[in-house]
């Protein structure tokens, strides 16, 4: 049974973690630990794909509860995602891990992190779920803190720890409200109960906040662009590509599975948060210079897209439109899977660049395609996929999401009929901006001429890292060419949650997908690919045949500047400037001021730009200030005399007794 197999894998991972912490430096060196992790993940992945569904109770944990585990169709999908992503990251780390400063600070936590994520997905009661959730959070926190000398990591670690605690707290409250009448925390018992209206709404809000803050929904994303880049790159890939999916799993599990029938207005907060995260995430990514932070912001955008799909699925499910709900949920799950693939490649590539050049700032890179050709090819595929270009997988899943939005006029509620097209516009905007963002990232870092000396000494990364990037890039292409196979793979989980599934796609001619029951639309990635190839071939032949072969050498037109240094190239800030000017005043409250030197001063004039992170300033800082003020207030209590403490006890006692007399 899959659940037994996965449990054994988790046990093996945890033992590996303990061995890596306690074992000898030689016996449990980096490549061995990562290699072991990769093999275990592969086993778990195969088990998730081919296994059987079932449940299991182990006599550990709380004595009256035990530990419930199960693998159902939904869990199997996410198990496959986690273990594929985890195995890929481990394979990458066999090579990448050699460059770590302090491998002993990373090695023990890496397998424990993957084990925690697996356990979250197979947990079948609230206690086990939250326990595994905390294992996942703490292991990833330790990984974020692995380079604790950097001030950035310390700040990221503190913020991450607070947000992780907060998200666990809200999930705890959500499960508390969901608990079955006789206080049972097993998921099987929770499913039966139906909550009165306001309580189910509260559970939805808590699940959205708890899972959303882990997944990086706006405005709870603040920790994500700090923590994801601070970790080593293979861990960043895991956190961005896989851990956010575990959070999405938690949301689906609570809202679609445990909470019972949906109400139409539940879709409103989910869609709004998703739309906001999609646009704001990518806008932040566009402004970012740090390659890994850019990728982290882009994760927020993609999580937003997944949540848009989930919100649509809720709306359709509440209105008893199972086919449309199945389409929305398939799109969401498909996009989650795709994002795992391409975001992993992107973080692997960013890590390779970091190792080769020591730079994360794209303004100091450039021309990497010549020194790192294979990584550059993989990165190009991933950048195209995340930008939603056909025939790659990002296009397929975003196309499915748009198809769902096009069904929305059939919804009966006016509110949703107005909201969904708005969210669709936001989604389209986000997709376009994502393309701009990755054109910028790829164009500045990989193309052109080197902007600093560090690129010239760079070299291609090692073969394990290349293998991991190559495999995932190939999977991006395959998932884009044959989306029908993946959609069929997801259909069992979709069927379980919304009671319907997309029509079987594999039987169609030429492997196209036709998501609607009336077969009104279709997409064929393979056909698009073929046409692209033919067009490219024809174009190439036309150039070859019709073009002149005569070679003519001339000097480059230098626009009047005799010396065109690398700094005269298009810069990342320059590329983002038009977009910053359009959206900046609204989204970042940005301002630009030109500082002129006083007359007679020979100093150069300068332009200063200021941008604000509004979520941080309007949501987090007031909360921080309030907490600090309260702490300051309570700090005085620390220094009272014993007699005064005693008086407090006395007064509290008298006060309680008074309350008792007054209230009875």
């Amino acid at each position: 049974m899959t659940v037994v197999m996965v449990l054994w894998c988790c046990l093996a991972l945890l033992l590996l973690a303990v061995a890596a912490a306690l074992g000898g430096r030689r016996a449990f060196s980096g490549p061995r630990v990562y290699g072991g992790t990769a093999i275990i993940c592969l086993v778990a992945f195969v088990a998730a794909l081919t296994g059987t569904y079932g449940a299991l109770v182990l006599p550990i944990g709380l004595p009256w509860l035990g530990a419930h585990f199960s693998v159902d169709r939904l869990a199997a999908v996410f198990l496959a995602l986690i273990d594929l992503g985890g195995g890929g990251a481990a394979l990458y780390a066999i090579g990448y891990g050699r460059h770590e400063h302090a491998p002993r600070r990373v090695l023990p936590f890496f397998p424990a992190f993957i084990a925690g994520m697996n356990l979250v997905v197979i947990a079948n009661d609230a206690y086990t779920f939250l326990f595994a959730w905390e294992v996942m959070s703490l292991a990833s926190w330790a990984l974020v803190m692995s380079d604790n000398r950097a001030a950035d990591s310390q700040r990221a670690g503190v913020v991450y720890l607070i947000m992780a605690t907060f998200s666990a707290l809200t999930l705890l409250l959500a499960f508390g409200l969901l608990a079955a009448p006789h206080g049972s925390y097993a998921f099987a018992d929770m499913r039966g109960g139906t909550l009165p209206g306001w309580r189910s709404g509260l559970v939805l809000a808590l699940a959205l906040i708890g899972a959303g803050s882990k997944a990086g929904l706006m405005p709870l994303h603040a920790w994500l662009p700090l923590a994801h880049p601070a970790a080593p790159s293979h861990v960043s890939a895991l956190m961005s590509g896989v851990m956010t999916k575990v959070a999405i799993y938690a949301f689906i599990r609570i809202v679609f599975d445990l909470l019972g029938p949906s109400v139409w207005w539940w879709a409103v907060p989910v869609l709004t948060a998703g739309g906001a995260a999609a646009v704001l995430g990518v806008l932040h990514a566009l402004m970012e210079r740090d390659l890994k932070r850019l990728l982290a912001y882009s994760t927020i955008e993609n999580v937003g897209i997944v949540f848009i799909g989930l919100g649509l699925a809720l709306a359709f499910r509440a209105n008893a439109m199972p086919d449309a709900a199945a389409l929305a949920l398939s799109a969401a799950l498909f996009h989650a899977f795709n994002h795992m693939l391409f975001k992993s490649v992107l973080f692997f590539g960013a890590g390779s660049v970091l190792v080769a050049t020591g730079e994360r700032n794209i303004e100091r890179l450039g021309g990497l395609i010549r020194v790192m050709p294979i990584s550059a090819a993989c990165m190009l595929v991933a950048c195209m996929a995340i930008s939603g270009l056909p025939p790659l997988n990002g296009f397929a899943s975003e196309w499915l999401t748009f198809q769902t939005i096009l069904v929305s006029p059939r919804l009966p509620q006016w509110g949703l009929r107005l909201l969904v097209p708005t969210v669709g516009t936001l989604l389209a905007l986000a997709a376009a901006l994502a393309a701009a963002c990755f054109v910028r990232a790829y164009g500045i870092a990989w193309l052109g001429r080197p902007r600093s000396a560090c690129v010239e000494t760079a070299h291609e990364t090692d073969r394990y890292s290349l293998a991991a990037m190559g495999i995932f890039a190939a999977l991006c292409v395959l998932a884009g060419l044959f989306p029908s196979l993946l959609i069929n793979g997801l259909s069992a989980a979709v069927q379980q949650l919304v009671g319907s599934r997309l029509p079987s796609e594999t039987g169609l001619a030429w492997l196209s997908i036709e998501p609607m029951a009336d077969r009104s639309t279709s997409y064929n990635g393979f056909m698009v690919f073929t046409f692209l190839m033919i067009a490219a071939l024809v174009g190439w032949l036309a150039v070859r045949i019709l073009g002149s072969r005569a070679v003519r050498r001339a000097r480059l037109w230098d626009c009047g500047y005799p010396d065109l240094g690398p700094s005269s190239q298009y810069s990342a800030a320059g590329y983002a400037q038009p977009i910053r000017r359009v959206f900046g005043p609204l989204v970042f409250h940005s301002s630009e001021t030109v500082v002129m030197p006083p007359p007679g001063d020979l100093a150069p004039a300068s332009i200063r730009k200021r941008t604000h992170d509004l979520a941080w300033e309007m949501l987090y800082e007031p909360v921080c200030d309030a907490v600090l003020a309260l702490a300051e207030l309570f700090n005085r209590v620390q220094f009272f005399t014993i007699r005064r403490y005693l008086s407090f006890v006395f007064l509290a006692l008298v006060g309680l007794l008074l309350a008792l007399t007054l209230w009875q």
Partner: protein
Amino acid sequence: MMLHDFAFDIAHMLAGALVLLSLMMLYQDRLYALINVLALHALVLAMSVAWQAWVHDAPHLYITAGIALVFKAIVIPMALRRMVFRLRVHREIETVVGTGLTMLAAIALIALSLEVMLPVTAGVDPVSREDIALALSVVLIGLLMMVTRHNAVSQVAGFMSLENGIVLAATGAQGMPLVVEISVAFSVLIAFIIIGIFLFRIRERFDTVDVEALDAFRGERK
């Protein structure tokens, strides 16, 4: 019936006497006098417990009464007396914070505890009912004493009278298991010993048993 009423009256009287003695403790500004009242307090407690034992025909309560008599009415007051003598504070007159005010507060506390306990225990045996209400006021007055006094020895006396109130409440509620009683008695004894040792250490270091000196030593606001 006659006997029952009589038993009730005696129990009530003894418990009332305990409250009265607690009130007396509040305005004793000399330590010897305070210790005398404390001894009397424990003696009345022992009588009250013994009376309960006789009325309810519960022989194990006699042990409680014995403990109260031997330890609380004889051993501890004697030890305290020696301690006060050796600490050379027996001539000190403690400034009690506003006797009148404290007494008024204590009366309010008695009213409060009656107000709390009488409705809660409605339907319980009337003997224990009154006892519990009065025991709560003894506990509260003990706490009040600990709060208002500066001298460590009088704080100890407050603590002892508080503990007497707890024992009274416990015997009123048909008594608690013997093991619990004995362990409570021992814990009080041990607490007494430890407090005594500490008092001497404090005395050695600061030349006073006024706890305010400790606060000054911490270098903080009073």
